[in-house]
């Protein structure tokens, strides 16, 4: 069976070439990756120290990380976000930024798997997500956007993480009822207005008094996930922790 699989994979690789989405070179490694090892290494992961609330990495040149576990950044101290915590795997720049663009705007859905494995690797290497959530949810796309894109980028990430952590994924409860402008184009205040009231919870019973992990692709100012967290908490969720693939710094 394994041999058959290997043959099938070989045939597939011969028929449909696997090229790196970044540098366009043929990927020699086995498996289903879409980025070559060279480009993969250029992805910058976010390490400690960081804001224990919003997950923003701190610009500290000397090693203080041990003592800074409970550090909270200026923005969060000024106005504590609605979500309980947010963490991101990598910086939203360079290779990863390009990859996410290809993923979302060129609709290369299969990149989702590469992102999932990036997240899983991160979790494996000791960056536990805690407290352990009861269920996983994602920041959904509006129907129109989903139809256009063909897939929901956050759902794919959430599904992968859920499968790995063996935590149930709840589909179609948190939903986006309003089509909004892409946040990328807007400034801080506009973003807030843009997403206000865009999300709703369909079945509040399902999420009452539980710890929830919310997945999104990119964390910029946190407006979108904060809005979602607000809606979820109003529906009775005990705790909302956010995990995004990337964040701006």
């Amino acid at each position: 069976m394994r041999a058959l699989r290997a043959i099938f994979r070989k045939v597939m690789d011969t028929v449909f070439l696997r090229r790196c989405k970044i540098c366009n070179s043929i990927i020699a490694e086995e498996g289903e990756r879409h980025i070559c090892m060279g480009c993969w290494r250029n992805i910058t992961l976010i390490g400690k120290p960081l804001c224990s609330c919003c997950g923003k990495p701190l610009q500290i040149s000397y090693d203080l990380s041990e003592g800074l576990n409970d550090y909270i950044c200026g923005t969060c101290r000024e106005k504590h976000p609605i979500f309980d915590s947010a963490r991101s795997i990598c910086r939203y720049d360079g290779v990863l930024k390009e990859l996410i663009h290809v993923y979302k705007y060129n609709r290369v859905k299969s990149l989702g798997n590469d992102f999932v494995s990036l997240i899983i690797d991160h979790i494996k290497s000791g960056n536990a997500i805690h407290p352990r959530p009861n269920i996983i949810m994602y920041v959904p796309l509006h129907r129109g956007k989903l139809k256009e894109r063909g897939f929901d980028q956050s759902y794919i990430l959430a599904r992968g993480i859920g499968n790995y952590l063996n935590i149930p994924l709840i589909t179609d409860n948190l939903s986006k009822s309003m089509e909004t402008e892409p946040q990328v184009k807007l400034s801080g205040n506009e973003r807030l207005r843009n997403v206000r009231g865009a999300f709703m919870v369909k079945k509040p019973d399902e999420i009452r008094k539980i710890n929830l992990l919310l997945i999104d692709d990119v964390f910029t100012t946190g407006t979108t996930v904060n809005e979602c967290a607000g809606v979820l908490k109003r529906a009775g969720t005990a705790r909302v922790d956010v995990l995004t693939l990337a964040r701006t710094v």
Partner: protein
Amino acid sequence: MKYYDLSKLFRERPLVPILLAYITGIIPGRFFPPSILSYLIPFLIVVTGVVLFIPKGRSRQFAALILTTSVLFGQVMMIVPDLFRPRNHILYLYSDDKVSLEGRLYMPPEITTKKVRLYLDAERLYKEDMDEGYDVSGRVRITIYETGIQVKYGDKILVKRVRLHRPGSFKNPDAFNYETYMADRGIYVIGGVSRNKRIEVVERAEYVDIFAFIYGIKKRMIDFIDSTLPDREASIIKGMVLGERGTIPRDIRRIFIESGIAHLLAVSGLHIGFIAFTIFYLLKKVIFYLLFYLIPGWARRGMTIKIAAFVTIFPILLYSILVGDRISSVRATIMVIVYLLSILFDRENDLYNTLVIAALLILLWRPASIFDVGFQLSFTAVLSIIYIYSGFLRQKPEQDRDILSGDKVSITPTPSLPHQRGGGGKWRSLYDNFIYRRLYKYILVSLFVTLGTLPLIAYYFNRLTIYGFLVNLLVIPIASVVVPLSLISSILSLISTPLAAILIKIPSILITFLLNIAKFSLTIPYSTIRLPTPPLIAVISYYIFMWGIINIFGRSVSRDQEEKKVWIKPVSVMAGIIFVVSVSWNWLPSFNDGLLRVTFLDVGQGECSFIRFPDGKTMLIDAGGLAMGFDIGEGVVASFLWDQGISKIDYMVATHPDNDHIGGLFSIIREMKVKEFWDSGEMKEDKRIVDLRMLVQKKSIPVRIIRAGMELQEGNDIQIKILHPSDDFLEGLRSGKKSMANNLSIVLKVNYGRVSFLFPGDVGRAAEKHLLLRYGDDLRSTIVKVPHHGSMTSSSYRFVKGVHPDVAVISVGKYNPFRHPRDKIVRRYEKIGTSIYRTDRDGAVQVITDGEDYSVTTFP
């Protein structure tokens, strides 16, 4: 020596070298007789290639192993039909006698305006004198020279009293080999009957398989189109959409060919791509809503596009079966399906690789397709498109995706648009999006397809369509409306005929419009140029040159192309020089080698002699006729002349008005430069010769009225003497005896030193007698073309004795109904020691002489 490392190619696109090796295995078997050497050479080529281009190491061993296996496979594939042919194959069992044959149609009948072709899987063969037949196998094609027969795929029929034979070719130098062409399609034996009543349906198809179902639908669509539209439009739409080209009238076909848009008549990527696109697009919408409300997780996981891709495969397969197995449509089907599979398996579609896969699959299915013009044109056209896309039009590799879903979102605006910066507004964006992106690409793609296929069209069809590129620009958008609308109405006709009948009016009107554009383009002078066949080396050097030019001036795609450029320049300059030299070779005044070449062409039942004088001047005496709707003048004589590098005829002789002599001259006059037309000026009541004279007049060709006694000195050593008809003979006819067309044939004698040729046309006994009386010993000739195909009424004993030839050439067709040549006549020549050559047996007969000696070559 620093060699170019191709191991990267082997690692990245291994199918490319595998395809090339496989083709290397296929090709020699066709051109060289089987011998150890011809089997070994392909291996040597491939192994040398591996040693030269792949560095030492495991990858070299691996490449050598894979590639030699591919060569071997190619060689084996070419001999498979010969190896596994059963003992009772029809090829071993047919004979010259009439037989009755029972078999089942493995394809729907092929219907044309005048005939119907049935393709049978032979089952039983009955000889004339036997009641019990015996089992046979193999495929047979039966042509009925009448339309209206009601048989369909799967029916078992009995063909009564048919003479089976090998597909006949006109056996001339470098000629198209019909026998091989048919054998490549698995047909070794064919036959023809004149009437439908010779076909008896033994058993109607009782089983309904998927093919019967599809052909049934096709039949209904054809009937709908036939009954709704005028014949002309109906035939074109059937050709364009359903792959039924048989009923397209000859003149319409000619318009399509001459204006350079014949490709529209073949179902190809344009059609299959369109259907795939439409179905995929609609399915995506429907499936999305279904999933979104029923299985939302699947919708979000991106299953919509996968399901849509999977489902789309089936209608594409159906359509592909419906339009038949032409290479262009099979190629397009494979490419579309590979694309859909790439979506299904979340993989990226590489267009080059997809094209190679299509080529490999087609060559596995029919290895000999590589020799097929259709194959070569189809693949060259698509390769040109892909090449231009990857070389000029591509900005980022990812954008290769989504050829089907069309609207793609590009993340980085094309950096190379100068007008994109600065102010804008509505018109600017229209300009950017439409004019630049679409129109510019469209024009560039059309241009490249034209440039890419041009040498092949020149090589195979001796044609350059000067405005073809522009006509295509206008016509393709029309066709891309005609195809979907016709198809939609055809499908609609299965549900509601009246509605479909209204809808199909639109494509019908557009077809008329399209035809008018094509017709108009032909009124422009020099719209289509005929040219002699360019040498193969010119074709090859053209491609190398074009490839080099694009690489030098095109936008470089990747960094390693910079390295390549070092040797691209000298190579393309070399190719350019070779191209110019090899093409202009044809146009240089030919070198006088002192040889007179006379070729008696195989034109079936008919006559055609071609003379090439030592100084390069040419004479054509007759050009065969029209046989069963096939124009021998165009298909055999002109094609022979083009292949010999001849584009002008200095003296064209029309001996007498019979179809089998002058029928073919019309196309020669239409397509070649004729300097002088020789005619007896007699037979004013014969419509054919009158038409020919009108055409000659229209083309402003000088006419020489031929009478006995005229003489022409050709160079220093050659005399052309006119022996017949003389004024005396004509007088004699006018005073009493009824006119005899054959006896008025022009008779020519060509003398070159000690060697002489006599061309007596179709003269009968009366003229022979007159010739003997008038010229006596002067009639003696070394080589004679036997008068009137060796019939009983010519070659009288005294004539044969008077001419006393060393060599007699009988121009005659196999199985002709007149039973020419008569054995008695043949014996009459043999008795006096003449060597007999027959075009039915020996093919073209070529006599080359220097005025002292002569040699005879045949092309059996």
